[in-house]
């Protein structure tokens, strides 16, 4: 499958496109949101929209974990990094994310000890090999990544690590989807459910979308044909008057998720009363913090964080892009003041961000081009 075997795949894609065109009623507009940055990447990289009729649009949601971290949390992490004897570790994607006073790269250039790690376990290893430093891991990510942080915390506890802590910024996808559904800005007709998050939480948590909001959800794989097939399944549900949660990605996603992964998250973390998301504002019970039993590994309890809320730069419209209200190219600074080399907003930083994906793969159809140069 998937455009690798060019001839066969292009034919399947065209067939799926034809079926989609048949299912989409003329005169009706369909807007489907993909909530996962991986899908956004595939859609632009492989020009998925070229296979869709004009009245079927894909809207990009808040599924890029790097993109949704608000500037205030970056500044808090910078504060930690500047403490004497502290080493801050983070995923490579975080290095260029702008905070209120520069990025981690800038902090590193200014003498702070900030190091990229591939895995939270590597951060723990840095701590164990550098007993004279206090090593903080900046944890970000949805439910896909939270179990890895959870197992690392359990490891740190078992090893009785005394110089390791976690600055926890894990977020949960369902409250963000609910916030978007509750917002009057955007009318959506259905959702492409996130593939990797769903390997952990399974498909059940999306049932409220079908039951309370009467919108279909299809948990989708990441390959071009997966995305097209999922759009087809969404349209088919609408055509047949159904609203259900379907799993297109059964090759990887079990309906009930990964019980062990959920269990280790629950053992180490609990929901915060509220958490600020870039662009979406404060969403209640939408993020995780460490449980009291893990207080000695909690950077938020160890350091007195400023916790200051920092507004996004005026020119930046990441918030509107993350909510799907604006397409990347509709942002005032897209591709001019804001580029992947000198990003103003988070959506331009991560390769999963809608703006970076759009910028890098520039899928300008003729009509879009007219919108851009309007």
């Amino acid at each position, binding site marked *: 499958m998937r455009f690798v075997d060019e001839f066969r795949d292009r034919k399947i894609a065209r067939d799926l496109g034809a079926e989609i065109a048949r299912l989409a009623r003329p005169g009706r507009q369909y807007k489907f949101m993909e909530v996962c940055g*991986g899908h956004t990447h595939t859609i632009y990289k492989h020009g998925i929209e070229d296979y869709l009729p004009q009245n079927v649009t894909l809207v990009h949601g808040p599924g890029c974990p790097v993109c949704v971290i608000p500037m205030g949390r970056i500044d808090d992490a910078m504060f930690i990094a500047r403490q004497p004897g502290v080493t801050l570790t983070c995923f490579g994607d975080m290095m260029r994310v702008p905070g209120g006073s520069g990025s981690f790269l800038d902090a590193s250039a200014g003498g702070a000890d900030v190091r990229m790690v591939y895995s939270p*376990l590597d951060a723990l290893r840095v701590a164990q090999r550098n007993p004279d430093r206090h090593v903080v891991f900046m944890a970000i990510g949805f439910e896909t*990544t939270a179990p890895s942080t959870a197992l690392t915390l359990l490891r740190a506890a078992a090893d009785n690590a005394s110089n390791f802590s976690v600055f926890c910024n894990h977020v949960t996808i369902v409250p963000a989807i609910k916030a978007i559904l509750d917002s009057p800005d955007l009318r959506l007709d259905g959702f492409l459910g996130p593939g*990797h998050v769903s390997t*952990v939480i399974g498909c059940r948590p999306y049932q409220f979308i079908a039951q309370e909001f009467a919108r279909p959800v299809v948990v989708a794989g990441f390959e071009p044909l997966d995305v097209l097939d999922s759009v087809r399944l969404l349209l088919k549900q609408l055509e047949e008057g159904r609203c259900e949660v379907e799993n297109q990605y059964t090759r990887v996603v079990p309906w009930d998720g990964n019980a*062990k*992964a959920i269990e280790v998250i629950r053992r180490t973390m609990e929901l915060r009363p509220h958490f600020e998301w870039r662009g979406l504002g404060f969403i209640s019970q939408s993020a995780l913090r460490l449980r009291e039993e893990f207080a000695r590994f909690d950077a938020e309890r160890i350091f007195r964080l400023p916790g200051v809320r920092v507004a996004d730069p005026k020119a930046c419209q990441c918030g509107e892009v993350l909510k799907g209200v604006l397409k990347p190219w509709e942002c005032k600074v897209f591709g001019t003041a804001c580029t992947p080399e000198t990003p103003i907003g988070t959506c331009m930083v991560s390769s999963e961000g809608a703006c970076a994906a759009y910028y890098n793969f520039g899928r300008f159809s003729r009509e879009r081009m007219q919108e851009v140069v309007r």
Partner: protein
Amino acid sequence: MCLAIPGQIERLIPGTDLATADVSGVKRNINIGLVEPEGIAPGDWVLIHVGFAMSKIDEEEARTSLEFLQTMGQAFADEMAAMQQKPPGESG
């Protein structure tokens, strides 16, 4: 960091929840604690995210998924580079 990459388990490391996996030719120790309940043995394929196996997949899915990831260009190259890097401050 968002990518999940297929790898094949080569060897379980006794007394730990780690295993050596072959990821696109790169050997790396990964944590298999999250998939242990499914039963993991050498030769199995798993989807790896930030050094942890997230789910067991079949060989066909692993191969097609790897082919797909290779079409992603820079994002895949960055992930493989991150995976190969030794943790900072570590030698050898």
